[in-house]
């Protein structure tokens, strides 16, 4: 996972899980891929029907299981395939984000974004930005009781 580089510094490749909605961000990510946009390979995407389906427990589960950062992304306001899923999600994540911050989970480890199907470039920015930010923060070893499967 991390090995000393030539100059003695430790390079670290963060593991980032992205929970994205099927209709906008997943399509946007697909566009980013087919457009051959340069993107950090650290992000694993999990596709869900809607940001409204993204339970806050998904974020915790990702950290529990060894993620160093999380991306949550879906349709822009007014674009939700189910009309209002993203509005509900927006409230839930607004509250959860502050609660996480209160117990000491650095909010910089979690990126929330709206990425539409046409915003391949924005997706690449979100991926690269998050990867770089989490790389600076280092591995999330302090997450209470974090497990990591063998071979990591």
């Amino acid at each position: 996972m991390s090995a000393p580089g030539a100059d003695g510094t430790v390079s670290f490749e963060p593991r980032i899980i992205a929970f994205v909605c099927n209709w906008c961000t997943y399509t946007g990510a697909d566009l980013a891929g087919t457009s051959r946009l340069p993107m950090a390979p650290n992000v694993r995407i999990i596709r869900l029907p809607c940001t409204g389906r993204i339970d806050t427990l998904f974020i915790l589960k990702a950290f529990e299981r060894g993620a160093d950062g999380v991306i949550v992304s879906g349709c822009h306001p007014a674009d939700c395939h189910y009309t209002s899923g993203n509005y509900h999600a927006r409230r839930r994540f607004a509250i959860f984000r502050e609660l996480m911050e209160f117990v000491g989970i650095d909010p910089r480890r979690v990126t929330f974004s709206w990425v539409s199907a046409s915003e391949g470039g924005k997706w690449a920015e979100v991926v690269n930005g998050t990867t770089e930010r989490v790389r600076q923060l280092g591995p999330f070893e302090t997450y209470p009781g974090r497990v990591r499967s063998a071979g990591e």
Partner: protein
Amino acid sequence: MFVLRVNSMQDLKELSKKLLEQKQVSAILGYEHGRRGPRPVFVTEVADCERLVFDHRCVHNLAAYLSPRRTLVAQLGRLAVVVKACDARAVAGLIRESQLKREDVVLIGVRCGGVVRDPNGAEQLSADNVAPRCLECDKREPALADHLVGEPKPPPPGSASRDARLSEIEALSPGERLTLWTSLLSRCTRCHACRQVCPMCFCERCIADKTQPTWIETSPHARGNLAWHLTRALHLAGRCVNCGECERACPAHIPLGLLNRKVARVVAERYGYRVTDDPSTPTPIGAYRLDDEQEFIQ
């Protein structure tokens, strides 16, 4: 239903007797003296109404017994319940979330000037023993009540609300906060008393009890405890009535109310929402505005 305004504890007993005699209800859910201070009691006989009491040690939120999962209580039939302002907020929550019909319960509101931390507490309410949450409550009487008893009360003594502690924690670095909470939550043994006593935790099957898949690990280790307490606090966002029962029931003395208080402040600041005993207002988590702040979203 008429509103009877009476002014002494004797009137609580008289009112209860009347409700039973007139068969308006089949039981009164109130407080009686136990060996360790007042405790909940279900009075079904007119003569037993003499046992009913109310004072600043009546800490318990009796609305917890109104949740539909209390099958034994449901067997009693229609209840009249003694409620403080915080308890009435819970009753309103149950009505708001379709767990209870307003007409299925008679609410005997009591004027309350704050309660102590522990029912087994002091004879006099003082700045030293007042439950901190009462300093965050500005309702001296429930508006939802059918009847209202007791003299008007002054606000509770003291000024040590938990907001100072919240600010202290917020001033720490993320690492320090995580260390603090990991340490506080390490005392949790997952008895789930916080959930069982909570009037707003009425789910038929709690997410913490679900096993397919197991979202929240049931083991009382750092991982399971953090996931549980964060989820509990979040699921109570805009619903927690600040009755403090979770914290009082916790055998590990974890200051759980801080999490709820934090969430309540977020909800108040972001959505201008405060939990009241008006059952007609929607909860902030079940509602949204097109122009909700989204400064945290890229």
